[in-house]
């Protein structure tokens, strides 16, 4: 018999608020976190807006690590606090998803090189960059031993990390895991999406007829996952159970999704199958919903296909309208939103909505949060390379 896996702590670090209450209050209020970019000069870009984490007080960490580590440590601290867990915790699994990892470190190196020459680059700077240092640093900071990895599967990475954590607990390898995702705002990402003309000039409007692209974002979220047995034994608050995971790959194009949404469908179907749930059980889908013309149309189509006659009853929203596209952190933050939707019975809105798109024929919970019981929520996340994922959460009866 496999162990059941539940979410007992959440640590969102986002452009609209950090920690459970600040984050959720901002989500429910429909807060737009976008603003003029502060971290770097955008005067030479065509686009100037992003969602940045503001008023952030960085935790002290040995060795002056890169910003992804700093975010991940802060989010882990929030999650542990929320779960009511004190250190030391010893053997804890740690799985962290990311897109670019500590890429701002590499950007810094290249900036110094360009300005002052190679010799001006600190000789140990590059060692802060390789992607696995994030989980290394977090584990060392908190003294976690146990299975430990980074899963750099781009913008679906948070879901991958949660699924890996669930596998570890289900198999009995550990009974507690910290899983989530992180990505600080990166100049490379801003440059790349800008060159693809995939950044919205003003606001991110997922599923809107006039959507023009993403708003680049940054953030992190870590979730405490525990076996149901351990959670009950210590009397922990249980937000939701992780009941199913589904993955697929379009195997189609480095950046474009498959036009028929083949992989998006397969991931949702597999998550439902893994959870042993029928489509009729689904109340809420936290969409990948980036706000690009291609993604939203294809995702909406895939949701309609999988949900069939049940589709009109499913609420679908994208909190990327509020926090921007936080890359590898996105699906981890959205997993927190799913857990809180189940826990509070409030569904986050898709803000900035003006004009319905007949090609996205879904109840996208426009502009206003909605109060309704949520028993089952699906968390969609897709990535470059056509990497698709879906994690199913359910209320623990």
């Amino acid at each position, binding site marked *: 018999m496999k162990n059941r896996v539940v979410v007992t702590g959440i640590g969102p670090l986002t452009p609209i608020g950090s920690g459970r209450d600040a984050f959720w209050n901002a989500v429910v209020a429909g807060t737009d976190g976008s603003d003029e970019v502060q971290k770097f000069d955008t005067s030479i870009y065509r686009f100037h807006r992003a969602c940045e984490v503001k008023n952030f007080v960085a935790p002290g960490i040995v060795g002056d690590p890169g910003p992804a580590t700093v975010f991940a440590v802060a989010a882990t601290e929030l999650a542990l606090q929320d779960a009511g867990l004190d250190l030391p915790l010893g053997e804890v699994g740690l799985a962290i998803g990311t897109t670019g990892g500590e890429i701002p470190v590499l950007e810094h190196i*290249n900036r110094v090189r360009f300005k002052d020459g190679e010799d001006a*680059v600190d000789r*140990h700077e590059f060692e802060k960059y*390789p992607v696995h240092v994030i989980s290394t640093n977090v584990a060392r900071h908190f003294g976690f031993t146990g*299975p430990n990895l980074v*899963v750099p599967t781009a913008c679906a990475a948070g879901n991958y990390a949660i699924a890996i954590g669930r596998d570890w607990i289900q198999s009995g390898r550990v009974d507690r895991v910290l899983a989530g995702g992180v990505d600080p705002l990166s100049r490379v990402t801003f440059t790349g999406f800008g*060159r693809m003309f995939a950044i919205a000039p003003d606001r991110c409007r997922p599923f809107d007829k006039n959507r023009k692209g993403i708003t680049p974002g940054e953030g992190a979220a870590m979730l405490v996952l525990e076996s149901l047995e351990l959670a009950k034994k210590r009397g922990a608050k249980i937000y939701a159970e992780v009941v199913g995971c589904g993955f697929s790959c379009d195997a189609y194009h*480095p950046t474009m999704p498959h036009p028929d949404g083949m992989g998006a469908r397969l991931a949702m179907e597999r998550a439902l199958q893994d959870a042993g749930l029928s489509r009729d059980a689904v109340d809420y889908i936290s969409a990948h919903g980036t706000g690009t013309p291609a993604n939203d149309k294809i995702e909406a189509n895939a949701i309609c296909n999988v949900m069939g006659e049940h589709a009109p009853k499913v609420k679908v929203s994208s909190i990327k309208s509020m926090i921007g596209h936080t890359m590898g952190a996105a699906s981890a933050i959205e997993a927190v939103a799913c857990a809180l939707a189940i826990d509070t019975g409030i569904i986050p809105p898709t803000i900035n909505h003006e004009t319905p798109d007949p090609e996205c024929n879904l109840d996208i919970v426009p502009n206003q949060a909605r109060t309704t019981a949520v028993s089952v929520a699906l968390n969609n996340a897709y990535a*470059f*390379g056509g990497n698709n994922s879906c994690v199913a959460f359910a209320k623990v009866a």
Partner: protein
Amino acid sequence: MRVAITGVGLLSSLGIGAHPVFDNMLDGQVSASGEIPDFDATAFLGDKGLRHFDRTALVLGSAARLAAEQSGLASAGYAPEEIGVVVGSTHGSIQAITEFDQESVREGPNYVNPQDFANTVISQPASRVGVIFNATGLNTTIATGAASALDAVAYGMTMLRLGRVSALLCGSALGHSSEIEQSYAKAGRLQISANGVGPFALGRKGPKFAEGGAVFVLEDEERARSRNAMPLGVVSGVGSFFGSGSAGLVRAMQEAMAQAGLKSDQVSCVVSYASGSPEGDKEEGEAIAQVLPGVPVTAPKSQTRDCLEASGAIHIAVSLLSIRSGKIPAIPKLDNVDPAFSKLDLVYGKAREVSVKHVLITARDDSGHNAAVIVSAAS
């Protein structure tokens, strides 16, 4: 479920293809340039659509092609959604990533080629393999530094056993990169001009970098046999542990052995991760002496150089060939063994001929990521 390896693709600075590389190892050859000789990816991947592949993706894709062909994957009867890709990678397309950023700093952000942006995500080499082989089952990249390739195999085993996919292209690659070579040399972690002193030797100063990679086809042994595919070996145990010092690697090795149901005297040899790193080799040696005293130990990096995260995959390939041939490649020119390793049965000078049934492959990263994989003879 026993997980069989039915195909292996290997590219290293010692050659292309598992057999040629292994023969060169037995012959005592040592990598001269660190680059794969006469590497033309179009020979494996065709000449269309490769323009925006970076070197890591080209090596990975070519290794995957060799593995898929040996395994007969295309005609194995697996539906696309039954096939997945799992890659161990910490640096991804590092050279393409840094060049993309350098170009934007130098020329301005509006002058970069958007087609190259895809390379900046660490998972892009895995994604490109997914496209080439139409593997729609799943596509995962695992990063644990130098332990990445072995941890990818461990993750792949879990995916197969959970039934999420039925066959996997699983491995790791790292293409030549001046960013890696220069940055790590600057930090004292790699040597540009080595003093010829390698793994386990007295006076070793650190590894030299080389490109390379290996990919395997993993599938259920029974299903492989039912389609008359020949298992080259089975993955009988995996272990992984985060913790500093030799204790972490000891734990990973013990976990792998417990999973394989093996006692220390049943392990035929250790394919060690030792690279010539002063501290790293020491911890590695301590762990092996503690868990597998008296078991022959070899260190392929003495010949292939250090391919960082891809090394573990190369070592699995070497292990399969050792099982098949009954030969353990020797560490060449190990004249002056560090006395710290006096308890180890190091294979040096001349290849050892012995029946090889179970090979334990180690990997450790200075970060504290440790992993071990045991590859066993199929029957």
